[in-house]
């Protein structure tokens, strides 16, 4: 609510007025009237939505100076997402998601020493082709003060199969200014590596994961909202990477993530600033900071969102640039090394009647020097481009 003071002097703006006890007393009685009851109460979507989204993800080839052998071209992934979401009756909704990832390219096999003494990457030989299909269904129940959802997802590849189940619930405080949310999930992954260009040494292994999350969001004003959340995930089973030559990780992994977010809308500018932060820590010695900032600018029926993401992690205890096979646990996986990474991106969406279209482009680059933590540079750090286009249609 705002009285906008354009060319108006001394006009108190309602946004800056602290409500007087008198107005508050009246306001309490006003709030009890049906016309002022929150209609933002949780309710299923009003429309059925069908959508299709295509993304292309492309990693830069490994640079010559860090490459020893194999194929230099790294992963290219085409991701197609298809979904339908529909209300069922007045208090239920259902969503079905199908995602297909089609990947090709090579991945780092192990890190060795180049002739000049610097570490270099031996990539898996020729390009690997793999296809992953994920199918998920979510049902959600809505009541006046909240909603609860149940999701089952299966993900299947030649060499990997995962089943996951998740339950989440959100409930609003009496005045609808605070929302508590909690979720719990379990998953069972089966790894059945296939011999391709590189030999693998396991037959079939399992990973069991359990995860919980608890969060709260609070409306600060008619234009600002904040949230924090705490999540904990525990996995056990075969957590090493079967496609890496020197990779022996503990068979348990316990992770916590503390996250926060803030959104502020600026009515004069018709835009909002979006800030998110996450602190992550696990029992493999890794911890990390992730900060994201975005500005969404609304135009008539068009929105443009430039965004930036910074990420920095500390290396795992058992990481070394060249795996140390004398240790009980060892890995040369760049993903366990110390580094920092930046993502720069632009997202846009346009609404035309019942149709919504979106487009997004982002660049991710990582570098040991950009990190906040000490640790040697892994040669296989990844840079990638990602582009997405999508369309969705809403109907009664």
């Amino acid at each position, binding site marked *: 609510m705002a009285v*906008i003071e354009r060319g108006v002097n001394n*006009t108190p703006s309602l946004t800056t*007025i602290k409500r*007087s006890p008198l107005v508050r007393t009246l306001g309490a009685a*006003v709030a009890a009237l049906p016309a002022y009851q929150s209609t933002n109460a949780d309710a299923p979507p009003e429309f059925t939505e069908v959508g299709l989204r295509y993304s292309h993800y492309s990693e830069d080839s490994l640079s010559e100076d860090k490459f020893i052998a194999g194929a230099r071209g790294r992963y290219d992934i085409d991701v197609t997402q298809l979904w339908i979401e529909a209300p069922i009756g007045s208090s239920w909704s259902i969503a079905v998601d199908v995602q297909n990832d089609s990947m090709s390219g090579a991945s780092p096999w192990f890190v060795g020493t180049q002739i000049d003494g610097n570490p270099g990457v031996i990539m898996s030989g020729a390009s690997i082709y793999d296809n992953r299909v994920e199918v998920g269904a979510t049902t959600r129940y809505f009541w006046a003060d909240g909603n609860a959802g149940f999701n089952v997802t299966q993900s299947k590849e030649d060499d990997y199969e995962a089943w996951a189940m998740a339950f989440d619930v959100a409930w609003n405080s009496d005045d609808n200014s605070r929302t508590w949310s909690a979720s719990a999930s379990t998953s069972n992954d089966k790894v059945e590596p296939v011999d391709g260009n590189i030999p693998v040494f396991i037959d079939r292994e399992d990973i069991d994961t359990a995860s919980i999350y608890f969060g709260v969001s609070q409306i600060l004003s008619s234009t600002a909202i904040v949230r924090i959340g705490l999540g904990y995930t525990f996995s056990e089973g075969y957590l090493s990477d079967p496609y890496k030559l020197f990779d022996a990780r503990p068979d348990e992994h316990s992770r916590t993530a503390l996250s926060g977010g803030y959104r502020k809308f600026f009515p004069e500018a018709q835009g909002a600033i979006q800030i998110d932060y996450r602190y992550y820590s696990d029992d493999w010695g890794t911890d990390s900071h992730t900060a994201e900032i975005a500005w969404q600018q609304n135009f008539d029926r068009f929105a443009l969102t430039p965004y930036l993401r910074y990420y920095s992690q500390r290396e795992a205890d058992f990481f070394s640039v060249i795996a140390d096979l004398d240790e009980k646990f060892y890995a040369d996986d760049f993903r366990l090394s110390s580094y920092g990474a930046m993502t720069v991106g632009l997202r846009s969406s346009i609404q035309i009647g019942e149709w919504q279209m979106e487009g997004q482009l982002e660049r991710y680059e990582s570098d040991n020097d950009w990190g906040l933590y000490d640790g040697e540079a892994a040669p296989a750090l990844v840079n990638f481009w990602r582009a997405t286009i999508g369309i969705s249609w809403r109907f009664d």
Partner: protein
Amino acid sequence: MASAGVLTNSTIVTEHTFKVMGGPARLVIEHAPDHAASARVACQAVEALLRDLEARYSRYREDSLISQINRLAGTGKLTTVDEETLALLEFCERLWEQSQGLFDPTAGILRQVWDFSRGQQGDVSELPNLLGKVSWTKVVQSEEGIALSDAGMELDFGGIVKEYGADKAAQSLRDSGFNHALIELAGDIVAVGNKCSGAPWQVGISDPDAPSETLVTIELSNCALATSGDYQRFIEINGRRYSHFLNPHTGWPVEGAASVSVISDSCLTAGAVATVACLNASEGATAWLTTAGLPWLRVEQAGECSGPLALAHPADAIGRN
């Protein structure tokens, strides 16, 4: 009556005017071209809900809930009421309390003495008798319903139902997905969001002496402006102008403002604050409005403007005589 006009290529305006609660009503919705049909439906829904409020709360209608309560006055019989009515009664109670009894929904019978339509004073000797029947404390409320304890008492929601209706209309439009709209019910205005362009809605407070003239233009976005006071209705006694607001303690018209306008987040609150300001004589009104702390404009019988909103209008209009 509904009409649609093109604003820009992507925004059109649906307007709907009708009469309700004894005055003109106007709805303006800005929306995308493909929502024209649903905008018309939303306008019809608003009109229907306002007619429903009128049917329930008008004291002029024999079959209204209010008339039923009034007919049973003094009989001791309770009238069962719905939750919305209970909540409105609760609001009256709060306002009665806060205004030290100046706002009293049972004060309507005092009009039997004062004939504002002819600007004449009636038989003042009737006042003591009538004042005995003016008391919010004689409205009996229980779980089974409500009753007026003395015969001849009357309940009148006239002072709040129109404002409440404007808010209800706004909520109805929001529920239908229209977030750029303006509702005008004879001087009570609710702005739903901004215009589609992002600019606030511009509304005028009209000059009490010349209603077609705009005294102050105010920009509203997501809030309400209520104006109390009826410029045509006043009484002159011994050369002094009295407003049509009647003091429930004395039974006499208030020697107060011609009109008071107040901005608040709900039209009901704005209207309540403005009405009580009109029930106060000048000094009391200023104190009341200051306590409320909402932006206000008061126009005196003689035409002077005062209040925070008065500073907003062009200098030549301040202190106009």
